[in-house]
């Protein structure tokens, strides 16, 4: 008896819910569509007309579910482990973005929430998280990852579930070259970054020979490979190309380097490996200059390597926050909220969050209710230029920004706290290069 009663109740409820949902988009959305002009940049003004018809009649069944419900935006980045310094920056930047721009969605009647996930910089952890993210129907967009290898492991799951990923940091070309319609990024690509580094090494640092080390990840090996291709093409002598997962004891790798006596050691990878390696190289009396990609962009490098990296150059797709005039308020807010200077990629995460929010708002507008994941992906594709705090982004058909900025930076040779010294790093060169 009780079983039957509950079944009956459940069926009635389901039917009611369906009935409530079905007419909802039709009725209130029609009048609101015209005022929601297709101009993509001006968003905050629009939510009011949609909120208005929904609010006064909260008791009537058809209108209530139209613009309500929970929307979550996930972040995935390493929050623990050796690369946590950059990963927490991404989460915090996205958090700040949601706080500043989430109003666009809350005004419409949605509840918004950040869902941070820790991928530990490990592909298998990222892929497992991706499954959890996919199974939460409230998550409509993802800001992340830090590591390209982790993103590439998670992307198939996102793709199967039509989840949009806007990456603030992934630079491996495969992210957008593999045909994932749902992958976007706000930064440049390693095939360009490797070439920028090589050109800088050849023309400004006057390098004749190089020894290349990488960390065997999609990111590190990728960028090192592009550096090598360009170097070989342009006549720099490549004395060695080695991959290693070693984190602390680099003796056996440094011995052949010392014998080869290169002008430059190029390291494709992240600061947690580069720091100890550079310091041990200097301890051994290796005088070669160092160069590396944006994975080295963290005060942690200075903490781990000490004087060995003072004055060294590195390339990046993300300059210090101080380089972006529009990001001044972000930098202040970040420091006030998280009690540290905004690390690299945090401002990009803020913009990635902005892109997600705008797309969800537009998709909701169009759907007249909580949008589907497909609609969000489509909205990012269709939205046109997004003016963020780190630049204006328009995505091409692959998901790359049409033009990206690449930087060459130099580590400051000041003394002091690593965090402060790192903020004083100077931009030596700035290049705007269209996506290949």
């Amino acid at each position, binding site marked *: 008896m009780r079983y039957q009663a509950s079944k009956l109740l459940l069926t009635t409820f389901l039917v009611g819910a369906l009935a409530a949902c079905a007419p909802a988009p039709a009725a209130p959305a029609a009048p609101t569509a015209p005022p929601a002009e297709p101009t993509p940049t001006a968003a905050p003004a629009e939510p009011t007309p949609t909120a208005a018809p929904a609010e006064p009649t909260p008791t009537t069944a058809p209108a209530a579910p139209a613009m309500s419900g929970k929307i979550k935006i996930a972040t995935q980045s390493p929050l623990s482990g050796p690369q946590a310094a950059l990963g927490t920056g991404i989460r915090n930047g996205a958090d700040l973005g949601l706080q500043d721009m989430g109003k666009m969605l809350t005004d419409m009647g949605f509840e918004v929430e950040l869902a941070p996930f820790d991928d530990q910089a490990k592909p298998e952890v990222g892929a497992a998280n991706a499954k959890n993210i996919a199974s939460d129907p409230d998550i409509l967009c993802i800001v992340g990852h830090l590591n390209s290898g982790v993103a590439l492991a998670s992307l198939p799951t996102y793709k199967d579930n039509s989840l949009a990923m806007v990456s603030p940091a992934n630079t491996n070309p495969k992210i957008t070259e593999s045909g994932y319609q749902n992958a976007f990024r706000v930064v440049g690509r390693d095939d360009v970054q490797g070439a920028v580094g090589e050109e800088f090494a050849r023309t400004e640092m006057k390098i004749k020979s190089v020894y290349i080390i990488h960390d065997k990840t999609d990111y590190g090996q990728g960028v090192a490979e592009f550096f090598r291709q360009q170097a070989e093409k342009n006549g720099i002598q490549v004395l060695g190309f080695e991959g290693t997962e070693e984190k602390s004891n680099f003796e056996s790798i440094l011995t*052949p380097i010392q014998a080869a006596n290169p002008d430059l050691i190029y390291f494709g990878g992240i600061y947690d490996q580069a720091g100890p390696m550079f310091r041990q190289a200097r301890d051994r009396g290796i005088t070669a200059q160092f160069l590396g990609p944006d994975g080295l962009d963290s005060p942690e490098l200075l*903490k781990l390597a000490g004087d060995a990296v003072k004055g060294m150059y590195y390339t990046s797709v993300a300059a210090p926050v101080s380089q972006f005039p529009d990001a001044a308020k972000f930098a202040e807010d970040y420091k006030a909220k998280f009690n540290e200077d905004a690390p690299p990629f945090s401002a990009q995460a803020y913009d990635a969050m902005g892109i997600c929010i705008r797309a969800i708002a537009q998709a909701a507008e169009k759907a007249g209710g909580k949008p589907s994941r497909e609609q969000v992906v489509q909205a990012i594709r269709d939205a046109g230029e997004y003016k963020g705090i780190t630049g204006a982004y328009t995505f091409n058909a692959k998901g790359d920004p049409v033009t990206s900025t690449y930087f060459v930076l130099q580590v400051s040779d000041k003394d002091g706290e690593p965090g402060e010294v790192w903020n004083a790093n100077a931009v030596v060169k700035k290049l705007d290069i269209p996506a290949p």
Partner: protein
Amino acid sequence: MAIAADALPAPASRRTLRMTLAGVFGPLGQVFIFVVGSAIVLSVITVLVAFLLRGTRTNVDLVQATLTILPQVIVDGLVRGFLFATIALGYTMVYGVLEFINFAHGEIFMVGAFSGAALGTVLAASGMLNAIPPLLFVLIAVIVGMLVSGMLAMTIERVAYRPLRNAPRLVPLISAIGVSLLLQDGMRLIANVTGLGFNARFPTPNFGPPLQLAQIPAADGRTIPLILDVRALIFIVAATLMLIGLNYLVNATKLGTAIRAVAQDRPTASLMGINVNQIIALTFLIGGALGGAAGVLFGIRVGTVNPYIGFLPGLKAFTAAVLGGIGNIPGAMVGGIVLGFLEAFVASYLSLLTGGAFSGASYADIVAFAILILILIFRPSGLLGEAVAQKV
């Protein structure tokens, strides 16, 4: 050796003295033979391969290139080998007495390294780091590391192993792996909370420039210095002292006799009035202290520590212990050094000899585990296997 004679109940006749000397320094000879032997064998093989391959690479004189870095590779291999050896000593101690592999030993090593790093950070913050002589700092840091790791090992034994002592052998093995994970992530938490950071810097006083042992002429007319880092030298000396000390302890003291008795037959030893629990706890204390000392010396040498540094060296030290004959003290030393040599040769030469087709540094890790498998198949008792009967 007067102490040794005092410690032994037997009258200090010339015979006992001779036996003591043989027990303490005899194994050193064995280690020395294996060190020299493996260095020579590996060098000859490498040069031979370079000689055979010389025609395939036109742009480089392979034999010359191989010979140029050979002395440095041997030095690197020795340093690497001593690292594995010092960790392997702890494994072997525990295995010898309990016949159970303490997989948390790598983490005991890591905790030792972290306690040294914490000490260095405190000293650096107070500005005392550069005021005290470097060697004194090493001594203090090693003592701190030994105390922390020794106590930790004893606690682990009391909490996670002793209650399982009569359980099937697989059970304490699993609890050891659990302890190992607990220590890794526990240390990760502590490091983050205390502000040491995941990648903690190990501040050390300035040891000065590395020693230049020789100048080796290279193909292009340059000379390449043969370098031995002062910190690596300290490491080698300290590891040798640890081996001598351990040999002395096990072979020439009352405690050592008791440890050997417990290792051979636990019930009978307890009937002879030996407090078995106490002896096992002391074994863990000694093994842990050795691991802690190795951790501190490793930290001083490489300059950074993180909660996962114990994992891979731990596995390799286990390989080293098996290679030398697990449960056998000189065997651990020999196994560690042979493994260190092999890895250094592979890491430095593979890429050169194959013209970059194989990246040496990435294949070095595989060598350790390939050896483990080969040894287990062909000589399960290890290189010094015949000595296994007299455990520890």
